[in-house]
Structures are given as C-alpha cells and as structure tokens.
C-alpha cells in the first residue's frame, strides 16, 4: 500500500457505499488520480488491491472511460464540439484555444499546465458553445474568451478553479438560470465531488 492512511480511509469509506467492493472501482480511480495528479500504473495497482480485481481488469475499466487520464496537465480544458456546439461555433472555440496555447486538441502544453481536448456533448447545449475546465462548466464561450481563459490558466496557475467564477469571467449565455453560486471548485483534472476528496472548498 502506497497511499497515505487518510486516502486509504477515504477509499474504505467509498467501498462501504456499495454492496460489493468492485463497484467502487470508478470512484477509487478518481481518488487515484487525485493522489498522483493523473492515472498511473501504481494507482491502478492500488485500486486493484482494494477491490480484489487484477490490475489489468482495473485498466480495462479505466480505459473504457474518457475521464481517467494517464497523460494530462494540471488542468484539462474540454471544448465541446457535439451538434449544438458544432452549430454555434464550438470548432472555432477549439481552434482559438489551440492557437492561444499552442497545444493541439488531445495534447498537453510543454509546461504541463493545460491539456486541451475536443469533447462530445457536455450537457450545456442551451449555452453553446460550452467549455469545461476540470469539469467546471463555462457556457456561452466565444473564441476570444476561450483563448483568454487558457492564457489565464497558463499564467495564473490557479490551484482551484470555480465554475461560477469562470462563468462570470469567460462565459456568456447559460442553458438555464444557475441559481446561487456553488462555493466548490476543482483541484485538478478530475471532477470536484466531496466523497472523492477532490473539492477545492470556499473560493
């Protein structure tokens, strides 16, 4: 076991939420990413040991999903290009983001600060084109705002990113009124969710 006790305790809490340990493999993979900053062989071995799976079974599950990333920067910028965003200029946003960072879709900047990806529908079609940073959503993004967002990420190196904050600074029209701000932010290229230990806390 290479994880610290607090992480192991979190892992055991997660396992206890399911009738069978194997069911915890997905949340535990996020815990592994949180621990290493990305998905590693060591992390998958650890998850295998905790769930009674073989390491390759864990990898088989992990590689099925697009959010467990072996190669990723400190932040992942996901530009939606599915149909509604496609119709409203998602590909222009992607091009602008790539230009601003010098990073083609699917790759990571040389300084390791950002990974740029083109993704399928992220459920923000009413606010198209939409972008996520570490799965925190920004809707109504123009190519210019997208580029600005990336330049900020690469220079400010924020430790935590907050969706509402990003939306105010770089976004436009939303799919629906969002209600009050959510104080929680993301700490890395994985979703911010309490049980995973990936929430950044108050802004």
């Amino acid at each position, binding site marked *: 076991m290479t994880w610290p006790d607090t992480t192991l305790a979190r892992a055991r809490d997660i396992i206890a939420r399911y009738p069978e340990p194997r069911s915890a493999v*997905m949340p535990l993979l996020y815990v592994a990413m949180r621990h290493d900053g990305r998905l590693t062989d060591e992390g998958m071995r650890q998850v295998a040991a905790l769930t009674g799976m073989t390491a390759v079974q864990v990898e088989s599950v992990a590689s099925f999903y697009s959010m467990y990333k072996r190669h990723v920067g400190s932040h992942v910028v996901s530009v939606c290009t599915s149909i509604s965003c496609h*119709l409203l200029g998602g590909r222009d946003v992607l091009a602008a983001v790539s230009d601003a960072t010098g990073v083609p879709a699917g790759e990571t900047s040389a300084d390791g600060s950002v990974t740029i990806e083109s993704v399928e529908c992220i*459920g*923000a079609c*009413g606010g198209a084109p939409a972008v996520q940073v570490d799965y925190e959503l920004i809707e109504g993004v123009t190519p210019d705002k997208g580029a600005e967002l990336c330049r900020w990420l690469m220079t400010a190196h924020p430790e935590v990113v907050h969706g509402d904050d990003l939306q105010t600074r770089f976004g436009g029209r939303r799919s629906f009124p969002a209600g009050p701000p959510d104080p929680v932010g993301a700490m890395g290229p994985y979703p911010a969710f*309490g049980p995973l230990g990936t929430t950044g806390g108050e802004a």
Partner: protein
Amino acid sequence: MTDRILTVRMEAHPTDSHTMARYEATGGYAALRKALAMKPEDIVAEVKASNLRGRGGAGFPTGVKWGFLAPTRPRYLVINADESEPGTFKDRQLLERDPHQLLEGIIISSFAIDAHHAFVFVRGEYPRSARRLQQAVEEARAAGYLGRGILGTGFDLDVTVHLGAGAYICGEETAALNSLEGRRGEPRIKPPFPAVAGLYAKPTIVNNVETIANIPWIVMNGGAAYNAIGPEGSRGTRLLSLSGHVANPGNYEIVMGMSWRDLIFGIGGGIPNGKALKCWIPGGASAPWFTPDLLDTPVTLDDIAKNGSMAGSGAVVVMDETTNVVAAAWSIVRFFSHESCGQCTPCREGTTWLQRILERILAGQGRPSDVDLLLDVCDNISPGLRWPPAQTTICPLGPSAVSPITSIMKHFRDEVVAMIPGAVTAGV
C-alpha cells in the same frame, strides 16, 4: 389545469430552490409522508394510472415496468442521470436546481418497489449536479428522510450518488448497471431485463431523473390527475431542451400537443439573424431529422413516431438554412463512433467507417460511389433502414448513427452529391 410540475419551485425561488429548507417550506416531503402511509402496491397502481412514460428516451410506461419486477430480493433502484445525448440538458437542471424533488421521488419509488439501496448514476461531467444531490442526500439523512427507519416507519433506504467518467453508452440502462458493478460500461444482452436480473443480477428498476422527479406530484395528486394532463400517450408535462439555431435556447416544461411551429417559433423565439429554418432534430442526436413540412404537426410521442422519428430524450436541435448538413451529420456520426462501446462488430467498425467516409466527403475527396456506400454501410448496421429501426447490434447505439445519414440522404441528397467531385445529382 396544471401546466407545470417540475420547474415551479426553481422558478419561484431562484436563490435557494435546491435547499432542504426551501423544499420543505414549499410542500416538500409531504408526498413521502403520504406514500409511507400507503401500501406499496397502491403506489405502483397510482403510477400505472398516471400513464407516466419514461423520460430517458424509450418512453416506456413506468408503472408497467415496475410491475415486471421479479419477486426476489434484494431489489435495487437505479436513477439514470447519465444524460449525454447531444442536445439534452434537462436532467442537469433538475439535479442542480431541485435535487430534493428527485430525492423524494427516489425514496417513494424505492418504498413502492421494496428497494433498500438506490443509486444515482450521474455523468462524470456533471460534478455540480452530483454535489447538489449529495448535499440533498446528506440533508435528507439528517432530517430522517433517509437511512434506517425513515420517518419512524420500518423502511430503510440508502442512496449512493455514483459519478460516471465519460461514456455516453452508460446511459443505456444495462451499461449503467455494468458500470455500477465496476465493469466496462457495455450494454448487456436482453433478456433478461433489469427488472428480472439487473444490478448484481438482482431485480432492478432503472428510471430517468425526470421520470422519478414526477413521482412526488403523482403521489400527492393521484395518478388520475396526472393522466388528465396532456394528450393521450403523452401525459403529464415534459421538459424539452431547445438548442441550436434558435433565439431562446433553454429547457421548457410544456404540456405536449402544441405544434412544432409553436415550439420553435413561439417558445423558441424563432431562428436568429433572420435566417430560415432548414431542419431540426426532434428528440436528441439519435433521432431522424424533421423538415419544415412537419412544422404544423403536434409535438407528442405518438405523432413524432408516426412521422418517422422519436421524442427520445426531449432534445430539440434546430438548424438554420446556412447549416452544412454533411458537417452536422458528421458531428453526430463522430459522436456515436466515439461513444460506441465496441462490443458489436457493426457498431464498432461501421460507425467509424461512416465517420471516415463523411470526413473524406467534407475534405473534397468523396467518391461517386460514396453515396451508395454510406447507405449500404448504414443498411448493414440497421437492415432495411426503416423506422423504428431494425438492428444487427446489441443496443440501439449503432443504429442511432444511421439516423443523421438517412436524414441527409432523404432530405438533402443533392447537397451531399454536390460535395462529391464527379457525382451526378439525381435527375440531372
């Protein structure tokens, strides 16, 4: 008559509709108290009487599904919050803005079907939805609505909020079950259906977020009241996601039966920038496209089906006259190719092949034979290219990739042909 059920609270209380305090203050959890005093089978009967149909895409009657449960225990309830069909963003609103409404529906439904553990499968890209729901779960547990001996009855329930990790196919109910079991999210062969052998091979009900969010209202007001709303076959209200080339995109809770014209040009505010409507997708990326000749047909499940498409997940994507339909179709085909789980040969190989032919055409390298080839590859995924589709695959994802191609071939064949050097437009 009631014309809105799901979005009343969030609109009246924009700053705190997601909190326990507001939920209780606006009548929340009264339905749960009422339900816990009922016999479970009577709740099922009310849901049957309501004629509530599933909002996840297939439109299956919810009460009938619950009636299929095999007698064995334990049983599970799984809420499908994997909302990933391009064009769809309604469940996100329900999760973020009124999570207790869904949670109350979950608790009542679990009681009705005798489940003691419910799972909500939230897509990984919706962390805010998961956080809001998790917070609601914790509030509900603290208030005695969840856990052991709910509200002093003998009913126990646990709710686990499960975060997906980026795979549209996990929206298919059996793929969601595999994913919850810690496996690859590959659809299972049916039968057995989840109601007989689902999660951990135990009887399981899988329902969409919106479906279950209706349950508290049905319990409070009775199945008959629900069945009195909207036209036959499309009872109740429905949350439609409007997007694309439309002036007022967004989610709209409507009673079905209005015309497409009223929806797109009335509620949707029409096509921006003075452009004309070219076509629209009536029910998510999987659905065949509609053209303006159908503008005056009614928006109901049955009418949409009769006209050769489906209401699906309620996503209406509007395209204006400037739209390059080949590029639009490519975007959708690429989506399905990217999201194919890879089990079935026709889906795995066929969707990618279609994507690459379209890419060639878009790059100006189409061949005259590509028109027939596209259709024949489609035919090998969905034989006969009919509606509702036949399939050579396990689940309907593969055939879904056929919809945009048959749509453009049916309505815009000339535009496709015009992009292919050397191809001859029919009739010329």
